[in-house]
């Protein structure tokens, strides 16, 4: 569902508020179908907020954005998909090591995607978040 919307209905993201509504629906579904994932998502948010200078923003394509100043470290969608900017060199190394996937839309960019599916994924997600934080430092 998420992949279909991102791939075929991405033009709808231009409608103000619609990505946020879609993300709220994703989050409600996550709560219903994967309640354990929410705890992991909350822990990632708490950890991000504990990083120096990091604050939350509403991501323009829906979800929670982690930002330092004007720069975005990454964002977490309502379904648990974590997108992070790590830079091209780190990206290649992380993908080669199987620690992250190419970004689900911009596969050739310095961004990576990571699925937070269960609380067991939290340590990996936090490791990636630390790399993203140093990439933007």
């Amino acid at each position, binding site marked *: 569902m998420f992949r279909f919307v991102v791939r075929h209905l991405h033009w709808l993201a231009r409608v103000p508020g619609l990505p*946020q*509504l879609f993300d*709220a629906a994703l*989050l*409600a579904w996550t709560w219903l179908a994967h309640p354990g994932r929410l705890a992991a998502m909350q822990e990632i948010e708490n950890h991000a907020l504990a990083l120096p200078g990091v604050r939350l923003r509403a991501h323009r394509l829906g979800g*929670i954005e982690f930002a330092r100043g004007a720069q975005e470290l990454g964002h977490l969608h309502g379904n648990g998909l974590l997108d992070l900017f790590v830079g091209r060199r780190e990206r290649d190394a992380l993908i080669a090591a199987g620690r992250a996937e190419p970004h689900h839309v911009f596969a050739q960019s310095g961004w990576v995607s990571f699925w937070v599916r269960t609380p067991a994924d939290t340590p990996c997600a936090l490791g990636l978040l630390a790399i993203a934080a140093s990439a933007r430092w």
Partner: protein
Amino acid sequence: MSEDPAPPPPASRLWPLLAGMLAANLVAAALFFGVKALLASSGQNEKMLAVPSLCLVPLVAGFVAAWFWRRLTPTIGDCLVHSLTTTLLGLAGAAIVIHEGVVCLVIAAPALYVMILAGALLGRIWFRPNDTRLRLSIVPLLALLTAGEAFQRTDEGGIVTDEILIHAPPARVWPHVLAFSEIPDAPDYWIFRLGLPYPTQTTNGGDFIGADRQCMFSDGITIREKISEFVPLEKLTFDIVEQPTHPEAYGHITLHRGRFALRDNRDGTTTLIGSSWYTLHVRPLWYFDLWTSDMTRAVHLRVMRHVKQLAEG
């Protein structure tokens, strides 16, 4: 490091939570009735109950709730739970104050919840205690947008068409299209079982244009119709002359006309085509039209399957 203050102890969390839920619903009610009154004073849609968009109103409600909850620094899970409670409170209010029907509440609930949740999640981020920017201005702006949307809106008509194959020639189908006895089958569509009136019988006042028809529904509802097109063995069109006053339909939808068309397949079978024209007054249109189409289809099929049974019997 994060500068968020520590959340208040549990005992003092209750009042801001309740205040947020109540304030959200009070603002939503004020918007709802305020816009309705404005429209009535300008002579538009006087009889419509659900005038403001059920997309924008709950979004504003979510923002308002988040403003009251901001010092509690709610988690994602808190937003999910408290938005649900706020939604249930609003639905209970709608049932008590405007006597909204169960089916309408069930249909509206998922949309309302997601909109309130979206507002609460955005508000959770925008109204964080350490964020000094004045973000509350979004609420009056959204309220203005809600009122403006209702005034700018143009009603769009919808049509639902269904067809069914009957193993009988048109001459055997036609009499049962004009009128049929009481449908003995219990409703099998889940929304009918929930309380939406379902068709039970149709009477016919004559076989000519201008003749009265009556379509009877469960709950004692009768929809009065007048024949506007009469082509024997081919087409029967009727205009709705009196709208149903049932709480599940009143003010939300205007029924315009219905039509049965018979297509002779020249092999002893007939395709019966049923169509209904209506205008929905609730928004977001795409959401409520999905439900309306589904319910109209269920009404069509209940009648057309009965006609099929009678014609083939």
